[in-house]
């Protein structure tokens, strides 16, 4: 049921991708970390990118967000070719990202973390004489995104003292404070407990109607639960990109994840989790408590 409704959503948005990777490639000293990757991101869609460690998922996010320059291909965002745009310009245009490693401003208050993130999109972010504490617009945005991320009770705390899950929520809240239209989320669920994971997935679902979301994630249960489309990467290349249902039954994906001796049909998404994978492929440490 959930699958058919999301298929309809995909069909409705198919025409106008907000973010587009076209033949994107990046080499590091001869090694192709990302090779000939093309994918579309639509508003109203959660597009998951899965793959083993070193498959090039984080490099792909870095190329899309402008943190890395591609060696080949181009990136289009909201009708513009943004391939040569530096990261801050892409961010101001509405391309937001979160990081795999938590990158909050640990010494700042939770509220100031979000206000500062919102400041970049304000008319005069370099204002030199008005006190930042009187930045009413920025503070309003900060409180709004903290509420959306479920952190409204923590506004006054120093960010370093938050729990791991709350820090991940703050990471997303800071991303939202920049008023993005596309969200590139690099393992937002890493290290989260079951309850925190549930809260984050609910947040993603709430953001979906108004945002285009790219989700890089190792938690397969979560991916198959929320994704409308899944792209599978192996060794920097896309080997499959389809609906969750078809990906689950894709022979090439099974071979990539489970090896050649794998059963031809995986009835359960759990078969795709790293626990069932070839040694060295998965990241079991990234998802404690997931199968308890």
């Amino acid at each position, binding site marked *: 049921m959930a699958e058919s409704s999301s298929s309809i959503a995909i069909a409705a948005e198919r025409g106008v991708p907000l973010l587009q990777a076209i033949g994107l490639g990046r080499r590091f000293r001869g090694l192709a970390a990302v090779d000939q990757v093309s994918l579309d991101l639509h508003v109203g869609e959660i597009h998951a990118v899965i793959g083993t460690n070193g498959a090039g998922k984080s490099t792909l996010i870095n190329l899309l967000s402008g943190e890395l320059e591609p060696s080949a291909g181009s990136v289009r965002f909201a009708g513009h070719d943004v391939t040569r745009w530096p*990261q801050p310009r892409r961010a101001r245009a509405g391309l937001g990202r979160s*990081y795999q490693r938590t990158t909050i401003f640990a*010494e*700042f208050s939770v509220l*100031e973390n979000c206000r500062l993130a919102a400041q*970049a999109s304000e008319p005069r972010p370099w204002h*030199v004489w008005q006190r*930042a*504490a009187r930045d009413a617009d920025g503070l309003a945005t900060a409180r709004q995104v903290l509420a959306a991320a479920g952190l409204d009770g923590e506004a006054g705390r120093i960010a370093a003292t938050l729990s791991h899950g709350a820090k991940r929520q703050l990471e997303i809240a800071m991303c939202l404070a920049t008023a993005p239209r596309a969200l590139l989320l690099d393992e937002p669920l890493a290290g989260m407990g079951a309850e925190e994971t549930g809260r984050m997935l609910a947040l993603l679902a709430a953001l979906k109607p108004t945002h285009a979301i790219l989700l890089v994630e190792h938690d397969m249960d979560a991916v198959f639960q929320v994704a409308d489309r899944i792209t599978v990467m192996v060794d920097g290349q896309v080997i499959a990109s389809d609906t969750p249902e078809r990906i689950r039954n894709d022979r090439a994906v099974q071979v990539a994840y489970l090896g050649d001796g794998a059963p031809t049909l995986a009835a359960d998404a759990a078969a795709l989790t790293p626990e069932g994978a070839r040694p060295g492929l998965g990241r079991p440490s990234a998802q404690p408590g997931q199968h308890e």
Partner: protein
Amino acid sequence: MASDDAVASAEVRAEVGALPDIGRREAGGWKVPVLAALAVAALPALISPYAQDVVIRIAIYAIFALSLELIVGATGLVSLGHAAFLGIGAYVTVLASGDSGASLLVLVPLAIGAAAAYALVVGALSLRTRGVYFIMVTLAFAQMAYFVFHDTKLGGGSDGIFLDVKPTLQLAGRTLVDLADHAHLYYAVVIALVATYGLIALLLASRFGHALAGIRVNEQRMRAAGFSTTPYKLAAFVIAGALAGLAGLLIAVKDGTVNPELLAWHESGAVLLMLIFGGIGSLRGAVIGAVAFTLLKELAQSEALLGPLAPHWQLTLGLAIIAFVAALPRGLIGLGARLRSAFARPEVAAHG
């Protein structure tokens, strides 16, 4: 247990609604700085001309240290070439004064403008590098400026040049300020220090200052949020250079002479030591560091106190600095908090 939690949560909470916490060790409120400024203003009535001279020197170095705090403490860029801007401000003051002297209305913009212009060039080039490379590039640019004054006739070579007539400020034919007058110089320096402190405090509390703090903590995150960070860093670097130029003007007027040693790397090192001494990340720390460093240097050079050791004052000063930094790794500004926590601890234990 419950009371422990209450104490802990009180400690981790920044004051919401007040200045959002940006990880600086700035003590709130204006009372202490204003009272300190008033006390310094009242000092000349109580102390000898020699002591007044020391106060003037300290205040000038406090301006110099405050300007460096804007890039080192607030923005997280460690520069080892800050003396170049002090020296350029000083040389421009003497060169522009010529044989007949000049008005402060001309000299102040000139000294500040020249130092800022050099900071713009140095910053635009050195900010392409990071970390230890930034330190080396700023040092290299300062050495370049040093040799320009040391090896050319422009600045009188290694002997430097004298300021024959000290600056004045005249309006409608009346001399309002004459820096040849010791009292005028004293108050001009105190006013410059208060203005510098106030300006930097204002900058740090602004959105611009908060952006600098964000760059210090995590520049990558700032870029991801949409800040083009280089212009912010360059602006901080230029403002810091400009204020160092003001300190340079004052040191030239106070000494009545300039020489290339003003731009030498050990001056850049000394002002960095003042910050470390006082406590990086706090404006009060910068001022306290300038006071402590200058006084310590005076003591180490005093023959009355140290006798035959006085000529070897660098050794005494160096050992004293090592001892201070070992005892107070967070600078003198951390001393108060340390004492408070030392006295508070038994009380907490009693609650537990």
